[in-house]
């Protein structure tokens, strides 16, 4: 239901466009979603009885690069929103494409990272760390993939000419979702990877 359509402009008693309000509310509720996942991870931090422990598994340089990639995709997303507001459609399409590509690089990197972890013996079932880690990062990855789908459908819509500067708000709302997914990764990256065990 995060799909927003360019609703016709109609009377609102506070002037905020309902789609933007809805997205911010949805992000607030997603805060609780990821908040409780991170709380579960924190509750079980360092309490795995057996199996590979975080310091044996993590490859910090690799993950910081993928974090950097996601951060930059936030930049390209912001530029996309900026250019559609200025009415420059070709630039918008380029930035949207770039954001989608950076996003898929991030997700691809995640999948690769997970396969190396599995080879190192960290699976979903092996211990508490594996369970909480994979579910947390897995759900974040799913959110990023849904974000990429939204971006591609926006791109597709603009190619069909159905996305005009008049619907700048739709891209901005999609941008809100994308930035939110990025800052969730900012928090996960710090809490899961960087904080000492």
């Amino acid at each position, binding site marked *: 239901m995060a799909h927003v359509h360019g609703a016709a*402009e109609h009377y609102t008693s506070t*002037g*905020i466009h309902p789609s933007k309000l809805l997205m*911010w509310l949805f992000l607030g509720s997603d805060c609780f979603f990821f908040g409780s996942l991170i709380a579960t991870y*924190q509750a079980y931090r360092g*309490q795995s009885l057996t199996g590979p422990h975080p310091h044996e598994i993590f490859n910090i340089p690799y993950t910081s690069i993928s974090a950097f990639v996601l951060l930059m995709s936030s*930049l390209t997303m*912001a530029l996309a929103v900026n250019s559609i*507001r200025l*009415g420059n459609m070709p630039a918008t399409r380029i930035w949207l494409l770039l954001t989608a590509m950076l996003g898929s690089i991030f997700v691809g990197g995640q999948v690769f990272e997970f396969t190396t972890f599995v080879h190192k013996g960290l699976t979903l079932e092996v211990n508490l760390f594996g369970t909480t880690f994979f579910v947390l990062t897995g759900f974040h990855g799913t959110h990023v993939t849904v974000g990429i789908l939204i971006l591609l459908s926006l791109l597709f819509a603009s190619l069909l000419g159905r996305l005009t500067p008049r619907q700048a708000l739709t891209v901005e709302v999609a941008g809100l979702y994308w930035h939110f997914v990025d800052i969730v990764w900012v928090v996960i990256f710090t809490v899961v990877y960087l904080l000492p065990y």
Partner: protein
Amino acid sequence: MARTEHKKKPDPPAEVGSELHDLTVTYIQVAVVLAVVTLLEVATYYVALARGLTISVLLVLSAIKFALVVLYFMHLKFDNRILAFVFSGPLLMMIAVGIAIMALFGTLLYPGPIW
């Protein structure tokens, strides 16, 4: 839940065509700051300071990144304050609940449950 008490001045109308100023420069500056902070974070990871210090530095850095993205990229700084309440309210509440869970499970920065 966060609620406003008084009526807001209406939000600036949709930007198309009205405030035609280009934010590219600010966005790039923000991105550069974000990149630098990320590098700092990874550096702190490698410089093994005292446990408490590392944790606080890392948390502060990630909070900076969080705030930067929310305020600038997500345009919250210039938008109606209702939106700010609607997002920051649950965020703070979740942080409080998260800290409570960690305290109850004893993993709040020191090992061993408190019960």
